[in-house]
């Protein structure tokens, strides 16, 4: 184990395809046994970063360390990684057993050792009855389990997952999500997991790295990212239904207030970040579940009257759309509440749970 407990360390990594810069001087340290999720919209460079770590793409600049060893120029097989792909990438002509053992056979490992490792992986993943089948005879979930098994038998330090659940249907996805989490708890390996699904990111990660345009926007624990996003992109990307944004002005006097239209929201309970509370145009963001409704609204530091525009019942709760300061605004109520279009309502929230973003830069204030 590396002295500092760092498993994967990426230092000043850049990747260019011709004139296009895909990753820009990226730094990332992953601790021993940590579950890191790289989250971002498609084209943000998250899969590219994973392929760089795996050694499947040649990088333009920078260095990659795995377990304290500089692997920048190493072949994928020598990096101590196992990888799981979105399309499973099982060798179609081989049985499950042969798929699992392929890497070991290439490495020239003794037969009884191979058998031992396959037995262990098959037991962990519960694929023993499938060992003699071909991939074509497996369901999607079984295939992905075999793909995970292929990484497992290699006895590696770091697992790389490239959107492993994206090809599965919703039900299987949530099942396998739990299984991956259990697997991580059992194995205690370092795992780097790429996804565009925020639920997967929130549920699995020790830390999430939200990426955009080849740059890590924020690297933090899921709750921090959710509650205190560093910029407007992160705030808007995480959360479904998305955070409400209201544009307006920040005015700093004796106490800071946010003004939009004829609304004034007091910000004395809002804790400003370093760059601080200077006056100017800004965006006020609040998550739909942080909005109180009806009686509860009056006990909030800020409350106002509004009218229901659209009601979207989701089953577990109901999403209500209204207008605040002329902007479309949504909030959640319990499913039992019956609201009709046009009903007058009272809504309120605690600005301490809100996020303020500087309009020109989009950064948190």
């Amino acid at each position, binding site marked *: 184990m590396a002295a500092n407990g760092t498993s994967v360390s990426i230092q000043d990594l850049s990747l260019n395809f011709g004139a296009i810069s895909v990753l820009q001087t990226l730094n990332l340290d992953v601790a021993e046994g940590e579950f890191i999720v790289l989250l971002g919209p498609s084209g943000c460079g998250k899969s590219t970063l994973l392929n760089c770590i795996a050694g*499947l793409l040649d990088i333009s600049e920078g260095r990659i360390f795995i377990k304290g060893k500089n692997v920048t120029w190493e072949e*994928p097989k020598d990096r101590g990684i196992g*990888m799981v*792909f979105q399309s499973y990438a099982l*060798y179609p002509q081989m049985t499950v057993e042969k798929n699992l053992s*392929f890497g070991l056979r*290439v*490495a020239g490992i003794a037969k009884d050792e191979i058998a031992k490792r396959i037995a262990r992986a098959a037991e962990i993943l519960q694929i023993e009855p499938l060992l003699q089948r071909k991939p074509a005879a497996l369901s999607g979930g079984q295939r992905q389990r075999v793909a995970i098994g*292929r990484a497992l038998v290699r006895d590696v330090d770091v697992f790389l997952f490239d959107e492993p659940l994206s090809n599965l249907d919703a039900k299987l996805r949530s099942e396998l999500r739990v299984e991956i989490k259990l697997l991580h708890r059992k194995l205690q390996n370092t795992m780097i997991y790429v996804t565009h699904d925020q639920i997967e990111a929130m549920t699995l990660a020790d830390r999430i790295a939200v990426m955009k345009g080849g740059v890590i926007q924020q690297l933090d624990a899921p709750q921090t990212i959710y509650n205190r996003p560093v910029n407007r992109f992160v705030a808007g990307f995480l959360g479904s239904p998305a955070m409400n944004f209201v544009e307006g002005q920040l005015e700093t006097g004796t106490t800071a207030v946010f003004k939009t239209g004829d609304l004034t929201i007091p910000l004395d309970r809002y804790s400003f970040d370093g760059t601080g509370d200077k006056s100017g145009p800004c965006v006020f963001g609040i998550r739909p579940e942080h909005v109180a409704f009806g009686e509860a609204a009056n006990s909030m530091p800020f409350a106002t009257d509004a009218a229901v525009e659209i009601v979207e019942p989701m089953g577990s709760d109901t999403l209500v759309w209204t207008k605040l300061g002329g902007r479309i605004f949504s909030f959640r109520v319990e499913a039992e509440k019956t609201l009709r279009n046009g009903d007058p309502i009272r809504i309120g929230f605690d600005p301490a749970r809100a996020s303020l973003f500087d309009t020109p830069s989009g950064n948190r204030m």
Partner: protein
Amino acid sequence: MSDHAVALSATSSNWRDDAAGPSGPKPRHMFSRRNIFLYGTLVVVALYYLLPLYVMVVTSLKGMPEIRLGNIFSPPLEITFEPWVKAWSQACTGLNCDGLSRGFWNSVRITVPSVILSIAIASVNGYALANWRFKGADTFFVILIVGAFIPYQVMIYPIVIILREIGLYGSLTGLVIVHSIFGMPILTLLFRNYFTSMPEELFRAARVDGAGFWGIYLRIMLPMSLPIFVVAIILQVTGIWNDFLFGVVYTRPDTYPMTVQLNNIVNSVQGVKEYNVNMAATILTGLVPLIVYFISGKLFVRGIAAGAVKG
């Protein structure tokens, strides 16, 4: 509102009662105008293509007296296989009188090594171009494709000189090399496109598993590419078997392939023109590609659909 709902349900119950309306699969008429046109055209075209073959087969089974009657479409009154035997083992060219058999074995000795050599090299070429993006791969590929469009005639004489200089002119080895080189552009294109259509992640998974260039090729790619190999084999067997130009230019009379031998038999005039022998000889020569097609036609179509059109 509720009145409306009642009205709706009333109509729907009416639909149920209407037993005369269409229900179940739409009936199809065998002798519709569309079918008559469709199958009529197909039958006419099929006849048009099959008629020459019919004439050949029928003529080859007739004796000369019967042919002289001039009824080329009539079936043989007396079936004889003598023309076939003669075409195979006794027909005369200007030089010898041992029929097509000599040419057949020459052709086998040309075709088999040429097919194996060209496909072995081209498949590795295509694999390297598709999966190992080396520097200058695109330039190399463009040069190869341009090669496919250069007319053979331009290269015949230079190749004669090259073969003469390295001492292979007139030998079967020389012809095998020529066939392998000329098969390279189209075969490489074929294999490259097939391998490109394979999922990239499979290749990456194999690399993570530690397989190298040859490991991935032999253990992952080859077992998955049977259809495209069948396509390549068909293209090469028929192409090389049917080749006349290279055969006549780069070999000597004792190593002439079957096609050249056939030409010499059909065109040598010694007294009577034996149409039945000529027909039998031609069918014999065409038999090999024909058999290849019949055996592997299904795989051929699958391979073409899988890789050749894409990319």
